[in-house]
């Protein structure tokens, strides 16, 4: 019989659960931290000597195509190291990683996006970040915190971004509307634009899945709410604050200030370019370059105003954030080299270099002070957002629960349920789904 270590057995169980779920985030495992911190392996000590040996890196997303440029930088001070990189399709990264942990055929280093960190760490197949490898205070708190489970950090943040308000300046000026700063002014802005002829002044997510739920989460936190208790033990989806947030968000659609059906993700640019809507609420920073791609260079500067997300009734700020962190599998054969590369990538100079190469925004605060990033209005807005960023619930069942919340949100928008009824139903379903323990 093939002997499986506890971590691999757990990974196997999780893998089967992941693969039998369309969301790839089913239950079937306990978080590593609950088995005593870095159950998958102990943190190694990392010295200051140059890295040696071969480092196998698996990448997801488009970042991998440009990453070899950073390898060259790393090799300047680490001439004896060899780096092999494999680009993995983003959609199935968690499946591949889980299978690899199960069989012990892992790479030395991966980077995981914020959305997938929970399910990966839940396998118990990753080491804790070695003590003193980096200083947590150097990073934006929200991105550092995303890979911390029961006070154990499993990832060294690489980059981070925050969503924002992206506003059609010309349309707003024509309507005499000012940049929204809170919920009331967001509604006023939308009403003025509607009166001035904009069909749907606000673009809100209308996919009614976990992404839609993520948008509600930002508004809920702005209202003093949230989806999960601080100790991650209880769902708090139907709290009074969340119900109020959903009532506000859905009223924007039911009052015709936003469409219930769009824009779908790819329609966002044409809708805003043509003036069908006048503001993308909770828009990612990458939209700016998309507008230039679609309408010609300089279009964004000419037509768009950027602003942090509006605050709630009591002035609470909250913003949707994302990013990625470096993680080292417990079965890695070159942990020393892997952590050294992760440390190198978190140095401010490397962070700036990577911004210049790929435009990914630094997770290290000091890097934002570099002249290369100064006087950039996108970065300025993102930086403000990162200070009030909200992480997704750090449990492996989030995608399932988020999908349930999104489905219930659609019922409210379509008139099939009140906000209270919808979130009560979502709460009940979330409790039956659990936390993935």
């Amino acid at each position, binding site marked *: 019989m093939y002997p499986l270590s506890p971590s691999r057995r757990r990974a196997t169980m999780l893998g089967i659960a992941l693969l039998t779920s369309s969301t790839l985030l089913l239950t079937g495992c306990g978080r590593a931290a609950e088995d005593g911190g870095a159950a998958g392996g102990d943190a190694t000590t990392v010295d200051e000597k140059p890295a040696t040996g071969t480092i196998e890196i698996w990448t997801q997303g488009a970042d991998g195509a440009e990453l070899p440029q950073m390898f060259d930088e790393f090799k300047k001070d680490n001439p004896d190291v060899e780096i092999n990189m*494999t*680009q993995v399709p983003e959609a199935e990264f968690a499946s591949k990683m889980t299978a690899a942990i199960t069989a012990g055929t892992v790479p030395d280093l991966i980077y995981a996006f914020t959305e997938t960190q929970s399910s990966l760490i839940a396998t118990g197949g990753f080491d804790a970040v070695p003590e003193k490898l980096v200083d947590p205070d150097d990073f934006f708190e929200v991105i550092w915190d995303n890979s911390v489970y029961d006070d154990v950090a499993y990832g060294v943040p690489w980059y981070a971004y925050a969503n924002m308000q992206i506003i059609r300046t010309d349309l707003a000026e024509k309507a005499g509307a000012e940049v929204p700063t809170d919920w009331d002014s967001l509604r006023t802005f939308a009403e003025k634009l509607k009166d001035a002829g904009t069909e749907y002044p606000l673009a809100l997510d209308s996919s009614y899945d976990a992404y839609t739920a993520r948008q509600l989460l930002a508004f809920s936190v702005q209202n003093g709410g949230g989806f999960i208790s601080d100790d991650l033990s209880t769902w708090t989806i139907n709290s009074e604050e969340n119900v109020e947030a959903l009532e506000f968000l859905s009223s924007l659609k039911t009052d015709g200030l936003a469409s219930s059906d769009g824009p779908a993700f790819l329609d966002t640019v044409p809708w805003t370019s043509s003036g069908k809507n006048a503001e993308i609420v909770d828009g990612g920073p990458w939209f700016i370059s*998309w507008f230039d791609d679609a309408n010609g260079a300089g279009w964004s500067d000419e037509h768009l105003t950027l602003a942090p997300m509006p605050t709630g009734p009591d002035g609470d700020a909250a913003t949707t954030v994302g990013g990625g962190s470096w993680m080292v599998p417990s079965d890695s054969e070159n942990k020393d080299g892997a952590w050294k590369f992760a440390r190198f990538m978190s140095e401010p100079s490397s962070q700036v270099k990577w911004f210049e190469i790929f435009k990914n925004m630094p997770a290290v605060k000091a890097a934002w002070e570099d002249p290369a990033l100064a006087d950039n209005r996108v970065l300025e807005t993102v930086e403000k957002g990162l200070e009030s960023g909200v992480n997704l619930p750090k449990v492996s069942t989030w995608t399932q629960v988020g999908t349930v919340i999104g489905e219930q949100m659609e019922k409210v928008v379509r008139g099939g349920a009140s906000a209270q009824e919808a979130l009560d139903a979502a709460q009940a379903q979330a409790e039956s789904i659990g936390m993935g323990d």
Partner: protein
Amino acid sequence: MKTLSPTRQALNYTALAVITVFMLLPFVWVFFGSFKTQGEFLANPGAWFPETFQIDNYIQLFRDRGFGDYMMNSFIVSSVAIAGNVVFSAMAGYALAKLRFRGKNVVFPLVIASMIVPYVALFVPQFVIVVQMGLVDSLIAIILPVLTLPLCVFIMRQFAHGVPYELMEAARLDGAGEGRIFFRVFLPLTGPGLATVAILSFLTSWNNFLWPLVVAQSQDTYTAPVGLSVASQASNSISFGLLLAGAMVVLLPILILFLFLQKYFIQGVAATGLK
């Protein structure tokens, strides 16, 4: 046989033509989309035609993204899968339909049952087995699970039932052994079945995504669908032009194979009642 009136015939052909056009529309959109720039997709995602035809997507795919290597891997995997399925499924079908052996009545239900088990349930154990065999990150590991597909065994067994016993008995009386009967009598009579098996096994192995992704630990062993998924990754989005150009390239061998074997394939489908 009753002949249709000219009006009825015209109506039928018109209906078929309309349905065909609707079914082809997505392919037409993919074809024209493969010549668009990313900016065009972002400006007007639903547009049918590119503003100017440019073949950059195809050039980038092969020159910069190594798609030629991925295609070659897919060809190797699919070719071996076709050969394996044609040979082994024919043998299995022949044995299950024409030979008598202990446990025969258990084997066939097991083959059918294996078609019912969801693939995801077999996935992780299958991967662990491949690792234990030391085959991870090899084309052999990608090929093994599709070397003999249960559906192909089923098809060949159905075909074997249609081969008259009398022919085989005659061959036996002439002194032919079991191997000779199989190759000289049985196989020539199951052409449509073999063509069906060839197409189905090609489609299965050619379109396989999850298994090659997990087994291939380096990009050297990626097959076309996996390579395409990587190649079309763009910052916070998908490079739609590359994706559609890749889709066209991946589609081409399937079309060619089907065009060559369609006559037999239709016979095979009709004979086995497949849907």
